[in-house]
């Protein structure tokens, strides 16, 4: 079985986000970029399925700017077999919307015919939490979001999902879309020899036109602002003072 793993290039999760003073977005010029952490978990899961003999080939896909090559090389160094890059924007500040990404991934899935598509549940930049569900709808495939456990059994898979009330286990028919949550696995670091080897793995470059997909956005971002701040309060000396403040000043207990 072939697995498709879409990966997004986002601001590194350790970098402090700076909102541009003119309200025109978040500053991404000369900022460290990395693979979306949830997508790393998806890549890791694909590799574990390959190591378990369930999966024969892992194809990593990224949609964005030319620099997404680096993100794909990371996936290849972790253990993906080949990569497809769809260059859909020139400016790193252009975020391709989940609907357009899902349309491109649908076209790629129809060409590649994977049995499973593993995606991160959300990207840590736009936090939209949508691409997997949208792709599943467009393909008419089964959908299991927020996976914390995944077991593939022939023509179906059993997925445990992290939901508001606790955990839900569902069974999905293959081919399936699974979006992964934090506790599915801990992604590996790529070793130096594998980073070197990844440079020779195939990486195809495409454009949205190759797939006949219009990536024009449906949403116009009219403003990006800093969230309203919260001032630090006071440090109390001991528990007695804390209780007094909560009772008399804040009136919450």
């Amino acid at each position: 079985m072939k697995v498709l793993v879409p990966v997004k290039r986002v601001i590194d999760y350790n970098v402090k986000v700076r909102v541009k003073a003119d309200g025109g977005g978040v500053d991404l010029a000369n900022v460290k970029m990395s693979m979306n952490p949830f997508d790393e978990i998806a890549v890791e899961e694909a590799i574990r399925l390959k190591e378990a003999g369930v999966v024969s080939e892992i194809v990593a896909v990224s949609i964005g700017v030319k620099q997404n090559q680096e993100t794909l090389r990371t996936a290849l160094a972790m253990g993906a077999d080949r990569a497809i890059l769809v260059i859909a924007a020139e400016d790193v500040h252009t975020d391709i919307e989940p609907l357009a990404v899902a349309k491109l991934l649908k076209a790629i899935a129809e060409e590649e015919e994977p049995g499973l598509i593993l995606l991160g549940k959300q990207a840590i930049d736009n936090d939209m939490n949508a691409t997997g569900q949208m792709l599943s709808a467009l393909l008419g495939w089964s959908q299991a979001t927020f996976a914390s456990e995944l077991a593939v059994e022939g023509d179906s898979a059993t997925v445990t999902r992290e939901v508001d009330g606790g955990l839900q286990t569902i069974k999905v028919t293959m081919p399936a879309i699974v979006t992964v949550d934090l506790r599915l696995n801990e992604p590996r670091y790529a070793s130096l020899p594998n980073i070197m080897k990844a440079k020779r793995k195939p990486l195809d470059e495409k454009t949205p036109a190759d797939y006949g997909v219009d990536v024009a956005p449906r949403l116009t971002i009219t403003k990006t602002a800093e969230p309203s701040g919260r001032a630090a309060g006071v440090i109390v000396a001991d528990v007695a003072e804390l209780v007094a403040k909560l009772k008399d000043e804040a009136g919450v207990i």
Partner: protein
Amino acid sequence: MAVLLLAEINGGELSADQTGKAVTAAKSLGDVTVLCASAGCADAAAAAAKLDGVAAVLCADDAAYGNGLAEPIADLIVSLAGDFDHIVAPATSNGKNILPRVAALLDVMVISDVTGIVSADTFERPIYAGNAVQTVQSADAKKVISIRTSGFDAAAETGSASVTSVDAAGDPGLSSWVEDKVQASDRPELTSAKVIVSGGRGVGSEENFAIIEQLADKLGAAVGASRAAVDSGFAPNDWQVGQTGKVVAPELYIAIGISGAIQHLAGMKDSKVIVAINKDEEAPIFQVADYGLVADLFDAVPALNDALG
């Protein structure tokens, strides 16, 4: 303008809190019709009909809707969508599972986790784990939006909307439910609790979480946890507060042994009063806390428990 709002239903029971807060947000957009999709939805529909701001309730009763599976519920919403300009749901794990699927089937872009409604086509939502707030305007014919409920008031239960049955839209049979592991608890729900006591990595073990729970029970509070505590196995996943867990805004939030990582702050910084107890005085949690106590939690929490009588 008309709004179709997917009710939050778990185990056949309406979440009046989540559904009502979403109604509060959505009623500025137009008449709100609440859709109750469940196996045996009469009770949930009757409860939804009482929520203030609800103009009508649709009840879709089918076994396929009993466990919140995305495929059949998305198909149901699409079958009803023709009459509505806005399709709305609370941004619960159900809403986030189902709405993007609905949006793709309608060929529109979903707008997730909306915290503010500016106009019929313009919405505010947090991005980058709450480090920025984006205002977006949709050019789509229909707007499909999920509401982050923590910033909206609960709806009073004095209404009396009419309930109409609607036909099920069939089950594509792509997935099936196996089991739910839901922890039974007498404590209030995290997302609607007035007081929350949360523990972090500093609590140290699953056993030690007992002191967090004791304090919570004394205050009639819900128990929360940081991602670090959940990842370490100290607390179950459904206790997680943060950008990828639950977003809460109680009257009082007590953070114990929590350093205050950005993604945790994103889930609780709109609480009315924040208390932090941490032995590291440099912990970022103190920058958002109204009252900070620099102390070993294993001394301070039992003392606080005693002081509350």
